[in-house]
């Protein structure tokens, strides 16, 4: 373990796995090393439900498992993968931690960061020749006007999520939606994606309401008494098939199911949720992944663990196929036509050339069981049905291809 003092305000960034070893050719004959950096800002996320654990290591556990999987394969090819982890405390200096990684020679970066931090590091002059995998920020802007040539997006965008949900709701003929929007920036953007999906797939927003939940405590004695009076009022309206909730911070959405004015399902950020991973998911070999992750991390796999695993596996897959540990060779292969990643979704995952977004099916999960997987049958596309989710080439304002 080595510590770097990286900024005037004294943010300490812990680096697991010594840099010194990561870049040297391994002492054993013919073993070449692929160093991968993982950078995260540790932002506390407290789920509203007491049943859900508060995770402090979401993301990094997936990256570590990806390294382990890469190394199982690598030992047959004389390749070794090493992860350097940079953990920045909330409000810490992400840029400084990132520059420390670059100074140590890193070129392949897994970024578990929010959109503003992601853009800040991607725009640093020293970052021009690095490849950054966005495993956390779902912002649609990053796939459009604010796209960057050195960033690939592993995590599905809000638009992909909203489209995945919309396809299922339209298939169910639940076309009239009542939209409840929280007060956070992310909530408003999520709601924008929902509105866009409604237009795209022929649904209608028949009512919409903003809701500022303030700062709600997780625990309140006899709390349900108030909640069961508030939620019906919040959803008072007529003629809707579902309530769509946009509450990314998980402040009130969990209160909506069973309490809506009309007896209707709740979908969106709570209830039936579009996500790239869910602990109930077991198809296409996902059981093996769930078991392997649980054995390694001692808990269920979260979405950020999955996207971090995919990022590390993207690098591993490219290193295997090119038989190379050179970062530039690896990047060229990932961006090329030959690249295909198996991610327990039943088909090959690839990166969109125009904005760097990973094409992928999106799960629709209830709290304790998988409900469906989008794209839904019948939503056709001239190139890939996966491109019915999110910003397709003609719609995206990003032109990296």
């Amino acid at each position: 373990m080595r510590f770097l003092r990286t900024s005037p305000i004294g943010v300490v960034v812990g680096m697991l796995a010594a840099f010194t070893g990561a870049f040297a050719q391994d002492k054993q004959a013919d073993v070449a090393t692929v160093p991968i950096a993982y950078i995260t800002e540790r932002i506390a996320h407290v789920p509203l439900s007491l049943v859900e654990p508060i995770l402090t290591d979401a993301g990094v556990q997936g990256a570590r498992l990806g390294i382990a999987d890469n190394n199982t394969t690598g030992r047959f090819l004389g390749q070794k993968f090493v992860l350097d982890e940079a953990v920045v405390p909330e409000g810490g200096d992400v840029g400084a931690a990132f520059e420390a990684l670059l100074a140590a020679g890193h070129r392949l970066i897994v970024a578990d960061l929010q959109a503003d931090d992601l853009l800040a590091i991607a725009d640093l002059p020293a970052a021009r020749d690095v490849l950054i995998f966005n495993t956390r920020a779902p912002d649609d802007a990053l796939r459009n006007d604010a796209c960057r040539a050195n960033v690939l997006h592993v995590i599905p965008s809000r638009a992909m999520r909203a489209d995945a949900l919309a396809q299922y709701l339209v298939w169910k003929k639940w076309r009239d939606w009542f939209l409840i929007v929280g007060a956070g920036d992310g909530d408003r953007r999520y709601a924008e994606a929902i509105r866009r999906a409604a237009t795209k797939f022929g649904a209608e927003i028949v009512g919409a309401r903003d809701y500022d939940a303030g700062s709600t405590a997780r625990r309140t004695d006899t709390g349900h008494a108030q909640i069961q009076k508030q939620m019906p009022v919040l959803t008072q309206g007529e003629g809707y098939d579902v309530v769509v909730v946009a509450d990314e911070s998980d402040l009130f959405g969990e209160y909506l199911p069973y309490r809506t004015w009309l007896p209707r399902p709740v979908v969106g950020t709570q209830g039936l949720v579009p996500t790239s991973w869910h602990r109930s998911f077991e198809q296409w070999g996902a059981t093996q992944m769930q078991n392997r992750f649980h054995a390694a991390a001692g808990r269920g796999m979260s979405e950020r663990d999955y996207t971090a695993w995919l990022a590390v596996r993207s690098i591993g897959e490219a290193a295997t196929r090119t038989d190379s540990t050179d970062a530039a060779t690896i990047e060229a292969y990932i961006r090329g036509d030959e690249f295909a990643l198996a991610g327990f979704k039943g088909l090959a995952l690839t990166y969109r050339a125009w904005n760097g977004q990973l094409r992928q099916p999106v799960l629709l999960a209830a709290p304790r069981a998988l409900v469906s997987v989008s794209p839904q049958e019948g939503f056709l596309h001239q190139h890939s049905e996966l491109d019915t989710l999110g910003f397709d080439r003609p719609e995206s304002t990003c032109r990296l291809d």
Partner: protein
Amino acid sequence: MKTQLSLAGAALLALVMPAAAETIYVSNEKSNDITVIDGETLEVTATVAVGQRPRGITLSHDHKFLYICASDDDTVEVLDLEALEIVGTMPSGPDPELFVLHPDGNPLYIANEDDNMVTVVDVEKGTVLAEVPVGVEPEGMGISPDGAVLVNTSETTNMAHFIDTATHQITANVLVDNRPRFAEFSGDGKQVWVSAEIGGTVSVIDTGTKEIITKIGFEIPGVQPEAIQPVGVALTDDGKYAFVALGPSNRVAVIDQQSFEVLEYLLVGQRVWQLGFNADQSRLYTTNGNSNDISVIDVADREVVKSITVGQAPWGVVVKP
């Protein structure tokens, strides 16, 4: 149309009916049972409750027992085929999915999906002889006709591992396309065919040079390429045909084993995965996981002649002569 097909099927069946009564066994992954089917009447005669999530199945050398990978119970169960009762279990390592029996009838080589291992089990003593570390998520298991070489495929590592059965050491690793599911040796032992589910191909590997001779791809008009997912592979011993199950495309490809040319695609049930010949290879049975049935293919005519409803999510199929 359907009536015509089944009438034609009945006529065909009458022609190709094998002389001795065979029995077909199908493992049903979701309903935790084994369906027993009379090979002559093609009627279900019994359903036997077994352990959790039965997948790979194979017959003992003397045909008295069926070995069953009860994946979620982390064991291999032994089903007495006379009494149709589970009479024992064997150690298997965690999450056994597929296995292959040595041509001499012992040992059994088991792929453990969860711990990157191939476990070698003595079926008579019920003991573990060896564990061979392989790639991530081992699944496909093929053994050479002389029993000297075992090939295991690992689904996330994307390799076919060649294992010397005398030393239990890996002798070669051949990189194939994404998510290799199945390995099958040709009758002469000179090739091993490896399917890649996500890659959408079958690699034919020369067992001497360990080089890929060719990669067979598939194209079905009107079917999205992503839906073509090769899994089960069956090769006729006479070297004529290869059959490849193509998953959610609901087709089985028929390939010329010599020219590697795809001759045609047979429409079977939904999400076809595993394949099993009868004794004289006049018939091929396919497990269709999403339509809960098996399809019966007449090998000489290359035609689907019947489908039989089984349990939920049928996975493996074997035929007892």
